[in-house]
């Protein structure tokens, strides 16, 4: 099993969610996060006082999938999250040792 962690633009959240749903990825966890990569923040001005905002709002997707589906899911996710501009985010892939469904104790691929 693989875990995919994808940090994407907040306005891409719905599109990414729908695309994953369409290829049959049923489970995911989504959180609102803040961060920055090469895209360095922006400037805000309040009554002439300037602020540099370097941590920008992003949305993080976390999902665990069977090994066989990795390429397909990464491709779908990348296509849906891409706007082509700086700040589109990153995808990280991890190996997962085990997955357990709490309700009935299913293990491995059956649990994800």
């Amino acid at each position, binding site marked *: 099993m693989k875990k995919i962690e994808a940090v994407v633009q907040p306005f891409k959240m719905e599109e990414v969610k729908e695309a994953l749903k369409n290829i049959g990825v049923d489970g995911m966890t989504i959180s609102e996060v803040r961060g920055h990569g090469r895209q360095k923040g922006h400037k*805000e*001005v*309040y*009554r*002439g*006082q300037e*602020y*540099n*905002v370097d941590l920008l709002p992003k949305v993080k997707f976390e999902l665990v999938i069977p090994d066989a589906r990795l390429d397909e899911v990464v491709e779908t996710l990348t296509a849906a999250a891409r706007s082509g501009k700086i700040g589109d985010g990153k995808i990280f892939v991890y190996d997962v040792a085990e997955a357990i469904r709490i309700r009935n104790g299913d293990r491995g691929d059956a649990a994800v």
Partner: protein
Amino acid sequence: MSTSFTIPFALLQAATPDLSARLTALESATKSAQSAGDNAWMLTSAALVLMMTGPGLALFYGGLVRRKNILSTMMHSFVMMGLVTVIWAIYGYSLAFSEGTPFIGGLKYLFLNGVGREPNADYGATVPHLTYMIYQLMFAVITPALISGAYAERIKFSAMSLFTVLWITIVYFPMAHMVWGKGGLLNAYLGGAIPTFDFAGGTVVHITSGISALVCALYLGKRVGYPQDPIKPHSLVLSVIGACMLWVGWFGFNAGSAVAANGLATSAFVNTHFAAAAAALSWMLAEWLKLGKPSMLGGISGAVAGLVAITPASGFVEPMPALLIGFLAGVFCFFMVSTVKHMFGYDDTLDAFGVHGAGGTLGAILTGIFATKAINDTPINNKVIALGLVDGNPGQILNQAIGVAIAMGLGIVGTLLILKLVDAVVGMRVERSEEEDGLDLSQHGEEGYFFEA
């Protein structure tokens, strides 16, 4: 034919003996109709001015602070509605409006003694004296709330309450008496030695609160982290709602100051709106030119600056000068808060001085220039005289400047004394850790927002 003559004649005959009684009845009905109209407007105005404090100012200021200080900042406005009201009823109205010395009123109206439904001809011949009292109370409520813009996010609640009680007693009541009270030093209409024109409280409300705010900001020092850490407004949405309520409420503040539902009230209403509009535009324009973008915060700050500046002038000037006063106020106050404040480095949290002190001063001086008897023909010593520079009375500008100087002098000395006293008794500022936690938790034990709830 004969009947058509006899009937009116008979009526006339019947009427003649009590003609004077009928005239008296007619006069009384006319008076009561005028009183009904004026009183309806004045009670409405009083309610509008209260709305300026809560929710208007509470939202405007509340949105500008950080999330952890929203409730404490709203409390700085809200608690005035209780605190100042009680003091006003007990001795405040008397010290401000009963006859006394040129500097402060006497004790004639202590506990509102003698303030009833009979009009007081000096203040409003057509409305109950109680109406005038409650209307003036709303001004006393909002004035100390304006100062809270300078000490927000770092003052102790106990210190704030004690400060307010002392401040309205030592600074506000004397200033209100000097400008509006019978026999007050600066009252042009009721026997003041130095006649100044302040229609709705440019000196009494805005200059006193603005200069006192500056003294508070300097005395308390900067907030932890200012200016190196980003301290951003947590919700400009709340501030926009609050500022727009201030704009609407200001119609009661300025047009209500005519103390009648007459043409002068209309002039003040129109001028108020014109100045707010021009100032909102000019602040945004100045920002656009200097910083590259016009901002929502700039728009509402400009509107408030324009409303402040037109306050003393609203019942004295023509509509075109009102536009000009607003335009100048927007640019001037923008310069004060975006440049002057940073030059001196004081932390006036929400720019109470930059908007109310600076805008109020500009408005007071411009009133001396543009005040005209064409708008306000209320007689002074039974004569309609030239008012401002445009009427050919350049000396008025000096009188206005004296009014400003007295308001500033009283504000500085009074506020400094009160700060020293309150600091010695309860301490002005919260502990550093309390400030970092936020005043909502440390002073009130509650939070403004629960997103999980």
